[in-house]
């Protein structure tokens, strides 16, 4: 999608009948139908689509013809599957030495988990990437993000890797194989958990996110960054110390609370010299209680808007509605409207990954219907005769 958004001609090759991803909800008006999946729409805009059964010999022939003129081939099959069909990197490089093959798989193309055939879904990968242990509440099971993330991380990282390979190809004409492991895309998200363990012997776990510090002797040091509002939540740290932005934020919050007569003894705090780790835990709890009592008198919008004005480092905990109606995203032109003639509707999408001054992302069209571009690509571009295409369609090759 990222490459397509930036102008690449991306041809989605699906098995006849369409890809399984088309069965991922939510659906347009809850119509459970492979041409109605919002998930599919969101991540497949700006692509053309053909159907092809690469498990047939004729299907593989057609595939190879497409590879001949392709810059990249992107696949997410189990390691070894493409090779077993004679479509592995070495095979494709013979057809097109400049081709870049991008393979995204759970563990990578090789290794002990691949040899053992270990299976995973996104939750398993999240667990094996070290992220699950760091998410959730201390008194319950560790968690995944309910809208699972690992595939997205790997996909976006694959875009980076494939563009590095393309940059190299521009200079040398040589392609290569880009091997992306979904598991390997996750550990660095833990920021510093492994180095924390190696250098200080402390193991971060869920609960540490509320303090930025690990549990010490089974106790979580008091800090707090989630605050309840009238109609939702905001997140922000109320700490002292030497980091300029946080210091300014705590001072601004105190000033605001003072204006409304709710600051109490917070006005006496010397924020610059307050080390929340060294000060009495009860004192931090006292500060948090006062702040919590203040914040809960505001709505999310009221608090967030004012926080921005006063340069406080707080953010609203946005749900999908907040994102969709964000004045900032709307002002930025982040939402694009794309026609869906079959639905007689125009849908709003989350749009450009960035604003480019010389190459703005201006081309937006909806994701392909199943086999929508079979004629365009097989007949017009590959020059296959209409009868042949029809016959292959009837035989289930296309």
């Amino acid at each position, binding site marked *: 999608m990222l490459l397509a958004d930036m102008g690449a001609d991306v041809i989605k090759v699906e098995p006849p009948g369409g890809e399984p991803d088309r069965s991922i909800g939510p659906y347009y008006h809850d119509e459970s139908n492979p041409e109605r999946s919002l998930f599919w729409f969101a991540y497949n805009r700006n692509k053309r689509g053909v159907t092809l059964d690469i498990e047939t010999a004729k299907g593989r022939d057609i595939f190879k013809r497409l590879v001949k003129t392709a810059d990249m081939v992107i696949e997410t099959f189990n390691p070894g599957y493409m090779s077993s069909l004679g479509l592995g990197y070495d095979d494709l490089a013979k057809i097109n030495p400049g081709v870049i093959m991008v393979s995204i798989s759970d563990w990578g193309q090789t290794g002990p988990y691949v040899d053992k055939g270990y299976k995973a879904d996104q*939750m398993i990968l999240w*667990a094996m990437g070290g992220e699950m242990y760091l998410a959730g509440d201390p008194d319950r099971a560790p968690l995944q993000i309910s809208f699972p993330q690992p595939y997205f991380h790997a996909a976006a990282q694959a875009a980076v890797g494939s563009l590095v390979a393309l940059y190299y190809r521009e200079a040398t004409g040589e392609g290569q194989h880009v091997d992306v492991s979904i598991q390997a895309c996750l550990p660095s998200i833990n920021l510093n958990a492994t*180095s924390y363990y190696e250098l200080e012997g402390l193991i971060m776990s869920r609960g540490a996110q509320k303090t930025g510090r690990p549990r010490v002797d089974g106790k979580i040091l008091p800090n707090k960054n989630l605050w309840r509002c009238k109609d939702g*939540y905001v997140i922000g740290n109320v700490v002292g110390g030497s980091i300029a932005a946080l210091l300014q934020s705590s001072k601004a919050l105190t000033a605001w609370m003072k204006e409304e007569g709710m600051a109490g003894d917070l006005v006496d705090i010397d924020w610059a010299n307050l080390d929340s780790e060294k000060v009495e835990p009860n004192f931090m709890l006292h500060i948090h209680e006062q702040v919590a009592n203040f914040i809960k008198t505001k709505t999310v919008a009221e608090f967030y808007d004012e926080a921005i004005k006063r340069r406080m480092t707080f953010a609203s905990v946005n749900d*999908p509605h907040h994102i969709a109606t964000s004045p900032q*995203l709307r002002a930025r032109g982040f939402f694009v409207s794309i026609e869906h003639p079959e639905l007689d509707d125009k849908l709003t999408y989350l749009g450009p990954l*960035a*604003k480019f*001054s010389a190459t703005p992302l201006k081309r937006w069209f909806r994701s392909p219907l199943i086999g929508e571009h079979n004629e365009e690509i097989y007949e017009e571009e590959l020059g296959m005769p209409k009868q042949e295409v029809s016959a292959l369609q009837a035989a289930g090759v296309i």
Partner: protein
Amino acid sequence: MGKQVFSGLKVFDLTTSGVGPITTEHLAAYGATVVRVETSIVPCTTRGMAPHKDLVRHPDWSAVPMLYNKNKYAITLNLTTPKGLEIAWKFVKWCDVIGECFTSGVMAKFGLDYESVKKVRPDIVYFSFNAQGQDGPHSHWRGYGSQMSALAGHYHFLGWPDREPSGIYGAYNDFVGPRFSGAALIAALIYKRRTGKGQYIDGSQFEAGSMFTAPMVMDYLVNDRIQTRCGNRVPNAAPHNAYPCTGSDRWVAIAVTSDEEWEGFKDVLGRPEWTAGSKFETLFTRKTNEEELDKLVGEWTRNHSAEEVMKLMQQAGVPAGVVLTAPDLLDDPQLRHRGYYVKIDGHPHVGTSFHHDGRQEALSKTPAEFHRAYGPMGRDNEFVYKEIIGLSDDEIADCVVDGVFD
């Protein structure tokens, strides 16, 4: 070190904190010459973060700056001094890429915004990747990765339906953004290679992060529905959760996503009575009785180690994985096979006392190489100011005295 993909590419890196540095690190990992500017006037937040070697709480002993700036030159430069600005312009003339992630207006304040730079270097590739973009009512907002995660919707979607959001350790969105900014930047470099044209890239971490919750936002826009967090549950699988095992805070994640896997799951448990009968026979009935199902599964896993459950389940064709901790990650055989954790020499105090995160993608012909750890602040001042900028020893001494390298 032989020729790499970005060998010879020169980057003037003014990024701070997480997202910006990780973006330019894509280039450094593949051979670019990246000069990263820090200043003691406003130290990078990572310099104040734990962990530190030997618990020495000093900016030069912190591991986090090293994690995000592998292979880069570390210099200090004080842009509030006239000489500092003069030197900045020498970097502008030297480099191919400029990167920054300040709130909008900061670079303009120094006269180093894209429009100003373009006059001297029309071919420059200049990226800005801050929290909310260069324009819009919130463009001057300051915040951190965990807060970006809140804006992008990740926070809302993490936790239990009967509780406030749980949160996740770390600055989650900081690791979403750089994948997008990296792709945008390298695409712009390819465009420049083909056409000779540079350009300005204006990215927003809020926007990038939202891409990972896009279908949920579309569900609201199209269906007027606001979905929310639901623990570990998913619509199409049960059991699907993390279950407690022997030991302290040890868990295994199990996902039964098909009838076949349910059969394998039952086999592993030895087909206890509760798995027979209609109550848990189909996905639908298991979802209906999911709370009870989770309880029963947990009663079994409680008597086994996480490693054992994973092994038995995988052998029976059921997806399962240990909920790995940091020490587990360092020992994971698959990550080890990929050479994921690397020790990098070059830091005078910290040395190779911890492992860096390496690359997530492996390029077969032009792999990333990590040849030098990122240094204490200003570690490379002498080399960079002499060899790249061409200052004499006397000039350098004067700059030090005048606070130009603060």
